[in-house]
């Protein structure tokens, strides 16, 4: 080991004193030829102490085969050895604090100096402590987040299942009440058909009542089922142009109009938007039917439907000239089964308006009512338009 060589090396590699990583140069016999400032700093071993000495004296662990073999390969002109932080936390142990070691990524490359045919080991140590720790923290957080998402999904699923159970329960109720009702209606119909002639006036009257009450119950359960279906979200209807919907309504309502001797005015010009057919049908039909049904005595019902688009909302108005609804009932009528009028002259059941409310809510809309007793009512519905031209179920409705 000549002084010259060391001087040359020291001169040659002097720039490496400024870099952020540890650099060490080893001769074939494991003598340290260069030890940069960073390594001094990290290891606490000064250049003066280590240069010219064998590295094994300071780091005996490097005598182990796992290091020796790889260094030998390099000295023999083989490919560089990489001591990745994943498997070897360090080649030269460096402490950050009393307990903490720097986590390092070390590469050992063979290089030649001058015209010398010798191969020297150029050892570069990169401190990846921060990076490693960050990755670790990130991974932990990411795993936690994934776990939380899974947890949330599980909770969501459990809740949805509970809801489904409740849904099918209500469906069950409506559905299973029909069986005995079918019997009741069936047999009373037979009685009416076959025996009304043999019954006297009183008897016929009683029988008519039985049939009528049966029909009422049937209607009730029908409406209930419709209500359940809306609640189920099973009313995932087709999307059709609003114009088409009004045409359908016009066709369907004609019988009722004739019976009630009523007049229905639908909008002349319809905005060019697409709507959830079954839900909007529920809303508009129920309101029109109500308007026709609850008319004032001897005054033919007139129902007007109008709509306009304002700011991304479809504003629907259905007004009638019927008996009106007293203000104290404005909330209640939308509850299931609220009936305000004697069923003698008027045949509605109480669920229609509840369906209107349900459907409106599903579409993300709002519903309001203005009415004067003895003059008429106006139902006002505001529905948000999605994607510029569509009215459909709001997705965040679980």
């Amino acid at each position: 080991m000549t002084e010259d060589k060391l001087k040359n090396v020291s001169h040659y590699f002097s720039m490496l004193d400024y870099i952020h990583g540890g650099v060490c140069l080893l001769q074939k016999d494991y003598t340290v030829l260069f030890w940069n400032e960073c390594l001094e700093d990290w290891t606490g071993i000064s250049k003066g102490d280590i240069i010219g000495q064998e590295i094994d004296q300071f780091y005996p662990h490097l005598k182990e085969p796992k290091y020796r073999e790889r260094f030998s390969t390099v000295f023999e002109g083989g490919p560089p050895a990489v001591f990745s932080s994943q498997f070897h936390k360090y080649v030269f142990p460096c402490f950050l604090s009393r307990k903490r070691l720097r986590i390092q990524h070390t590469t050992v490359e063979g290089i030649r100096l001058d015209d010398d045919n010798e191969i020297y080991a150029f050892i570069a140590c990169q401190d990846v402590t921060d990076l490693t720790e960050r990755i670790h923290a990130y991974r932990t957080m990411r795993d936690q987040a994934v776990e939380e998402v899974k947890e949330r999904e599980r909770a969501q699923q459990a809740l949805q299942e509970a809801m489904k159970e409740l849904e099918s329960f209500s469906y069950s109720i409506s559905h299973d009440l029909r069986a005995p009702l079918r019997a009741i209606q069936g047999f009373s119909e037979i009685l009416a058909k076959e025996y009304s002639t043999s019954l006297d006036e009183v008897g016929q009257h009683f029988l008519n009542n039985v049939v009528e009450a049966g029909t009422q119950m049937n209607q009730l359960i029908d409406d209930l089922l419709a209500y359940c279906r809306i609640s189920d979200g099973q009313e995932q209807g087709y999307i059709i142009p609003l114009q088409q919907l009004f045409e359908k309504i016009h066709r369907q309502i004609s019988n009722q109009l004739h019976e009630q001797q009523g007049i229905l005015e639908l909008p002349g010009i319809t905005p060019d938007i697409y709507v959830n057919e079954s839900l909007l049908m529920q809303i508009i039909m129920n309101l029109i039917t109500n308007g026709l049904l609850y008319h004032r005595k001897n005054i033919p019902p007139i129902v007007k439907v109008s709509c306009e688009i304002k700011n991304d909302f479809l504003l629907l108005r259905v007004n009638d000239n019927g008996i009106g609804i007293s203000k104290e009932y404005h909330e209640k009528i939308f509850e299931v089964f609220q009936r305000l009028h004697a069923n003698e002259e008027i045949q509605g059941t109480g669920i229609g308006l509840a369906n209107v409310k349900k459907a409106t809510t599903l579409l993300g809309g709002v519903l309001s009512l203005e009415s004067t007793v003895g003059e008429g009512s106006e139902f006002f519905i505001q529905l948000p338009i999605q994607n510029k031209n569509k009215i459909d179920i709001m997705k965040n409705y679980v």
Partner: protein
Amino acid sequence: MSNNTRVLLIEDNKFDRELVKYALQSSDATFQVIDACSAREFEAHLENSQFDVVLTDFNILGFGGLVVVNSVRKKFPDIPVIVITGTGSEQIAVESLKSGANDYIVKTPQHIRRLPYAIAAALEKMRLDQEARKSEQEIRELNEKLQEKVSERTAELEAFTSSVSHDLRAPLRRIYGFCYALKEECDDQLNEPGRDFLSRIIKSVDHMRLLIDGLIDLSKAMDKEMIYVSVDLSYIAHEIMNELKNDDPDRQVEITIVKDAKTHGEHKLLRVALTNLLQNAWKYTRPNNKPHIEFGILETTKDWVSYFVRDNGIGFDMQHKDEIFEVFKRLHTEDEFPGDGIGLATVKQIITRHRGKIWTNAIKDEGATFYFRLPTYHNAKDFHASNNSTDR
């Protein structure tokens, strides 16, 4: 690392300030250094909060670096603080980190080179922390919303159930009334088949009324208010069996009821549950010559007491062990055993609302045992707490 990171540097030594700025300059990212050389300046900057990271000397003239760490932590929990120290002692490092500093750096030319990386790492960590907290918050809110929706829905369905039952009663009563009137007044005007149809209508009305009454029970079981009281199940069981015996005095049934089975819960609901179970046992032991019904305690642990209602009646095939608790599920026809198929669903609802469990074991033609366990509550507060904590 984002560009133009604003660094609030609290350092009263001119040379150390230069050192820091030099270290920051030599990295790729750009830093804007804001100086604070005194307590007053620090406080002023603290008010303005125009910085992304705080670097403070440990031995700041006038106030300790840890004070800085604390103040920043309190006011801006999301802004990292890095302590730079001249000494490098272990003690200081630990203290800094303990009081909330993100990192510490020793003020030597070599160490200081680490500064840009330390800043980047600290900012990154803060960012990740924030994100984690945000998503935690989001998840919690979402869960709450879901819970709310389910509660809403449940309440809706309850109202629905009771509405259904309630409002179907009127037409039902009328159908029955007029059929009855027909029978009374016009019996002679109807021939045999006519009378038969009439009685079938009446039978269906009865059936429907049973269904509806059962539904009303069930909807009451779903009802919100649970009032916590001490309930003597043995006493209730005795009462129920006496009622059953009174209604059917000719039946000889051997009855065993455990003594002093006391628990806590909603009195009315537990009574309904026990009534349904005992009624079932009474009903399904009818074909048996030596019927035996038992209400007893299976097991007592620190947290639970398990009870059972056992009979030696007709039993059922265990493949149905889950579906018998469903609404309207009946394993026998109306003629064999009259019933509404709702009773067990009601029992299950009640036991579940008490945070208990119900299960069954049966052998066809030999008998059935229904087990249910109820948690032991030591006081009303626990009962209500556990009832409010999760969805119903």
